[in-house]
């Protein structure tokens, strides 16, 4: 049962602690644009959606990389695509290929993306609401099922 970073938008409050934690971990500065995780804000609906690389099984970034700078490996039970900085030439092909915008080229001229912090993601540590977790995908799916059914169940009770 592979682990993955999972997102629960229902409990995210849009505090963006994950963004500052990520940029600090990787760049030693507090700077959301350098973060590998981003929270989209829909304030009027009190809706906040965190998104980071989902470590695709068929990583298009890796497929398209002409220098082999993206490599697939595993950390702490989770598949991860890592950037081999020495091989990266900053051509940005990976940015074109990723459908989620989850890889970018920073002011160092090299690509960066979520590396799961080597198996203990800082964003998860910084998250105060449980919107981010690092767990098996089955567990995440189960929670999602439960949350949908809970809503259905409470409405059903109201109807009765």
């Amino acid at each position, binding site marked *: 049962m592979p682990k993955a970073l999972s997102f629960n938008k229902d409990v995210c*409050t849009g*505090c963006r602690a994950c963004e*500052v*934690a990520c940029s600090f971990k990787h760049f030693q500065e*507090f700077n959301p644009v350098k973060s590998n995780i981003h929270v989209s804000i829909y*304030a*009027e*609906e009190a809706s906040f959606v965190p998104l980071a690389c989902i470590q695709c099984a068929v990583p298009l970034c890796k497929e398209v990389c002409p220098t082999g700078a993206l490599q697939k490996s595993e950390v702490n039970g989770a598949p991860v695509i890592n950037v081999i900085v020495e091989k990266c030439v900053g051509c940005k092909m990976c940015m074109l290929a990723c459908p989620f915008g989850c890889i970018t080229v920073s002011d160092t001229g090299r690509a960066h993306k979520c590396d799961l912090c080597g198996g203990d993601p800082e964003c998860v540590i910084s998250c105060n*609401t449980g919107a981010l977790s690092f767990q098996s995908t089955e567990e995440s799916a189960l929670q999602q099922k439960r949350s949908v059914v809970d809503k259905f169940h409470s409405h059903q009770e109201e109807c009765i």
Partner: protein
Amino acid sequence: MNGWTGKILRVNLTHQKLTVEALDEKIAEDYIGGRGLGLKYLYDEIDPSIEPLSEENKIMFATGPLTGTGALAASRYTVVTKSPLTGAIANSNSGGYFPAEMKFAGYDMIILEGKAKKPTYLWIENDQFELRSAEELWGKDVNETTEWVVEQTHPEAKVVCIGPAGENLVKFAAIMNDKGRAAGRSGVGAVMGSKNFKAIAVRGTNGVSIADPQGFMDNVAFAHEELTDPYMSETIAKYGTADVVEFSNEVGLLPTRNHQQGTFESAEKIGGMALAKDYNLKGASRTKACFSCPTACGRVTKVTEGKFKSSGEGPEYETIGALGSACGNSNLEAVIKGNHVCNEMGMDTISAGSSIACAMELFEKGLIPKEDIGFDLNFGNGEAMVDLLYMAAKREGFGDKLAEGSFRLATHYNAPEYSMSSKKQEFPSYDPRGGQGFALAYATSNRGGCHIRQEVHCVEFFGINLLDIVETGENLDRFATEGKPDVVKKIQDYYCMIDSSGICNFIAIATPNTHVLIKMIETCTGINFGGLDGFLKTGERIFNLEKMFNLKAGLSVEDDTLPKRMLEEPFTEGPGKGHVVQLAKMLPEYYSVRGWSDIGIPDQNKLEELGIASI
């Protein structure tokens, strides 16, 4: 510099000239940021006796060294200017996302001076900035303005702006940011309006660097552990500050019908539970946070149908007190709608609600004739309250008088004693007769009627410790006066530091270990306070310079007072029954503890000790 960006953007509207200046490092060390930094520059650059709505006044938008960092709730900035409501120093603090974005763009402070010939807004993208025409925007509300400006600049831009109330120089107009957050008090929005200045949009992609990264992050982790107060970190997270309504009512200090009583028979109808159950979009749970805040006290509410149909941020406790119990209004939908109207028009909910409450009492006592208002204005009339909010923002009819605030309104009708204010600024939703310490704090607050520049009430009846400053158990009988002057002084000095640091005071109060904040600022900036004493001395310097500003602005010992009702009319019911504020018993001792003369003027020795004797 670390923590600070080291840059100030000066915007001269008269000459349409924008310049970047280096932040004075000595001033940064002595005044930190936010409330203190803005004050120091304002004090040095304007004559405090000027007319607040004249071209000579300036507005300082000041962040703190912690703003935009990973510190808890590092989301704040302070708007510092001379207040048109009080004639005293104004320092209105707000959170949301704008303050951090301003820091990411590379500025500790933006100084706004002069007056534009035509409506103008400012667009900043890192080191690029320009003044643009806001003629199309004039008259638009806060939501419309924010959306228009984002459309014209950058989808990720964060916006501060004024609404129609600021344009119309309403004495309690706010400066709004991120639509629903307010630098609310003291009429700072009117100063912005007087300059023909509508908005600032900012986009920043720079980072905030830290002097001692490892030490800083260790402190952040420690702060999370020390965030122990369950009321602030759990209950407020679930219900927002609206939860305080029931509590204040139980202890008998919920302002009711313009402070005629301290208990409201319908408190539970307008409290946190009711708000969560039917109106908050996420029910009884964390809803919307400011930048980097673990508490998320913000509410996002919707009234789906009827005459109070509306949606937006709030209400929080103060708003519910002002638009609810103070107006004798038990209709939560009217409170919510009123809050949303204030947000859209850009008005302080506290002063707006309290001014309407004052008008209601004057009407019921026959002191305002019905023909002046145009309709009946009895307590409990939520519909009239909402109408009056629009009228005040637009200065239509009776709204023109209301827009001057409760003190000027009541004075106009020869009854100033019915304005529940100090230094002409309306009280927040804790009746001072409910605690002698925070009553003294209301009377001596440099910006007038205010709870949040010194949360003495949190110590007096929430029982919160502030490690090494005020311990629970010390002078905690809220109706006692003994020792309170010393407690008030210490908390006022401490809050000067919180408000200058860039973090939210809710987090500071929920983290009773005051050393956390000290270490946070030290590891962030690299400065050394030399322990708690040095830290509080910096706060005391800020407080005393504010006092000097006020004295030069013409305020005096006569202004350190409270309305007759607080001093002479005891509550007739509830747990506060029989109590009045014993101000005369505390004020001389307070001045003495401060090292001030018996008419509240700082002694030369005190000024020398604080390093401000020469100014």
